[in-house]
């Protein structure tokens, strides 16, 4: 069964526990500047939005890479960067329509979410359930259910 990270921005408080968990897993440091998941603050709207790679099936980054440094983790479906092959050309960062593969000055390579091998640290660290790791076929169903709830006749109308 393939699983996906599922993000509900409405539940995010902007605490950055996900960024700390991600960066600690990747670098052994609490270091939001090295996190592969990012929480964006939209101040005037009063909103927070965590965002990271959605692991496209036909991944633009993977197709664009001139040295085949990006491959599929068959266990999780994650698109993985091979540091041995990556030359830091950044073509993948241009190809990705979502901006979720990024260059890192610290390593001279590109970096992106790898789903932590199937047990994403960000989802485990999120205190509010804004980030969950769910059956890939269920992405979107929570919103569908919320919309369905709105389609119910009101209690007043049925009585």
């Amino acid at each position: 069964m393939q699983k996906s990270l599922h993000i509900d921005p409405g539940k995010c408080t902007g605490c950055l526990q996900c960024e700390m968990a991600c960066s600690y897993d990747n670098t052994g440091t609490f270091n939001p500047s090295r996190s592969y998941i990012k929480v964006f603050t939209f101040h005037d709207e009063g909103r927070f939005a965590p965002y990271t790679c959605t692991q496209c099936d036909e991944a633009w980054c993977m197709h664009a890479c001139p040295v085949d440094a990006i491959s599929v983790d068959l266990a999780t479906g994650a698109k993985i960067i091979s540091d041995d092959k990556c030359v830091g050309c950044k073509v993948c960062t241009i190809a990705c329509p979502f901006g979720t593969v990024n260059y890192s000055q610290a390593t001279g390579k590109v970096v992106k979410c790898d789903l932590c091998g199937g047990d994403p640290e960000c989802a485990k660290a999120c205190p509010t359930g804004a980030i969950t790791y769910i059956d890939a076929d269920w992405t979107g169903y929570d919103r569908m259910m919320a919309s369905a709830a709105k389609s119910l006749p009101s209690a007043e109308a049925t009585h």
Partner: protein
Amino acid sequence: MSWTRKILRVNLSKGSCTPEPLNMEWAMEYLGQRGLASKYLSEEVDPTCDALGPDNKLIMATGPLTGTSASTAGRYSVICKSPLTGAIAASNSGGFFGPEMKFAGWDMIIFEGKSEKPVYLLIQDDQVELRSAEDIWGKSAWETDDILHATHQDPQMRIAIIGRTAEAGCLYAGIINDRHRAAGRSGVGTVMASKNLKAVAIRGTGGIGNLEDADKFFEAVDAGKKVLADGAVTGQGLPTYGTQVLMNVINGVGGLPAHNMRDVGFDGAGDISAEAMAEPRKSDGKPNLVTGAGCFACTIACGRISTIDKTHFSVKDKPQYHGASGGLEYEAAWALGADTGVSDLDALTYVNFLCNEDGFDPISFGATVAAAMEMFQDGDLTTKDTGGIELKFGSAEALVAITELLVTGEGFAKDLGMGSKRLCDKYKRPELSMTVKSQEFPAYDPRGIQGMGLGYATSNRGACHLRGYTVASEVLGIPVKTEMNDAEGKPELVKAFQDATALVDSAGLCIFTTFAWGMDDIAPQIDAACEGDWSVEGCLEVGERIWNMERIFNQAAGFTADDDKLPKRMLKEAIKSGPTKGQVSRLGEMLPKYYEIRGWNPKGEVTAETRERLSL
């Protein structure tokens, strides 16, 4: 370790920035942040110095847990001698600035001397430089934040800034970071302005990775997070309602002061409460509250993000205030609202925005306005003094006008900016100033809640709820319930809360965790992160040491037992109505016992034996 073991010394007179190693011997005795920076201040600054002169120093300090994944570990403190009180000041802020300082590789920054011209400090990891701030001097904290982010093309930069009130010499100006987080009390922003330092902008990319025992750390931190999630206040009350959950509670038990503390109990409390913030407005159908928000690493998220009704008189022609920003917290809602008698939620939210935009303490400001309103009512102040403003209790228009005036620094703003003590002295009504050591009371009446009275009287930074929040016990029953009006047992309770709080404020953690955490939950997190032995007993001793060190600083600054007192109103004017009717503060019963259990002599001086016991 978790400390970066590095501090930055910035001499503003010389324009030099010099790294130096953190004094680890002191770190073992004072932990970090409030405690450790107060130790540096005690060693380096003459307690009798002019707080606004070049001999005072301003220290921005993190704790060893700041920047780690321990819940709420995003705090930093600003330590200096206060211009409002003349005592030692330690103002604590959340947001994201403190962790960024750690990620850049610095435990603390010590500012000394005074720059000839306005400057800001730019830190990008180990690259540090002072830059000209002549273009941004005179701008609000929000505008400065926008300009510096644009100048450095770095949306992730974290910046601590003073606003126009600090520049104008308002004695209760704070330092704003992340737009609506503040090192708010005791005028630490005024000290920053006196040094011609406009802002500190930091970008850190190094991270923190030197945990003493990582496995133990994650075990202790995960256990701590679970305790917070399961706690009634930390898992339900604060996330849902923010600190404003207290408005109706404190009003209900007879602890909410109103009208410059002339009354206890406020009819408009419900209109300015958390519940009201969540209620859809009649005008646009939207509630005041947009969302809860967390500071760095916080799993409680008591922060509020609010909007003001666009058609409200305060912002009708001011689109710059139509977006969301930091909303009311309980202390601000009380001081700006109940204490001034104003129950207009939109007006209070707007005034709260201005407090953040230009960096001034809503508690001291609101309480000072309340004192001015009482003098206006009694005829000691007239519209001639106030620049034409009808400063009446309950007038939202007057509150908004006087706040906008304060920001200009002109006319009556100069009087208001002195704080309630100096204002009431000037207009010959000293008895109307609700202050201790010249700092204004927060939102709990010391006649209704006895422990808070003793806490205000003995707080090392002047009246304050954050030096020992005995409301937890006296009202909420945390960790055990004590009776609000009992004087007996309160000296012990106050001491225990003060010592524990000093430790929490020195770790990098938020004091709100103690609604669920005891030292049994906190010490293991520190112990796993840091070298040295941080047992529960050891932590409590460090807390007690810090408290006594601050007291010794104040003694050397000239404070005596005579300054550990409450205004006569609290001691003589009984509460007129409600559940606490007839009560006065029984400070006189509690204070001698407090001195005794502190190991101080009857004059309130730290004895030689106590100094020796605590290695002071």
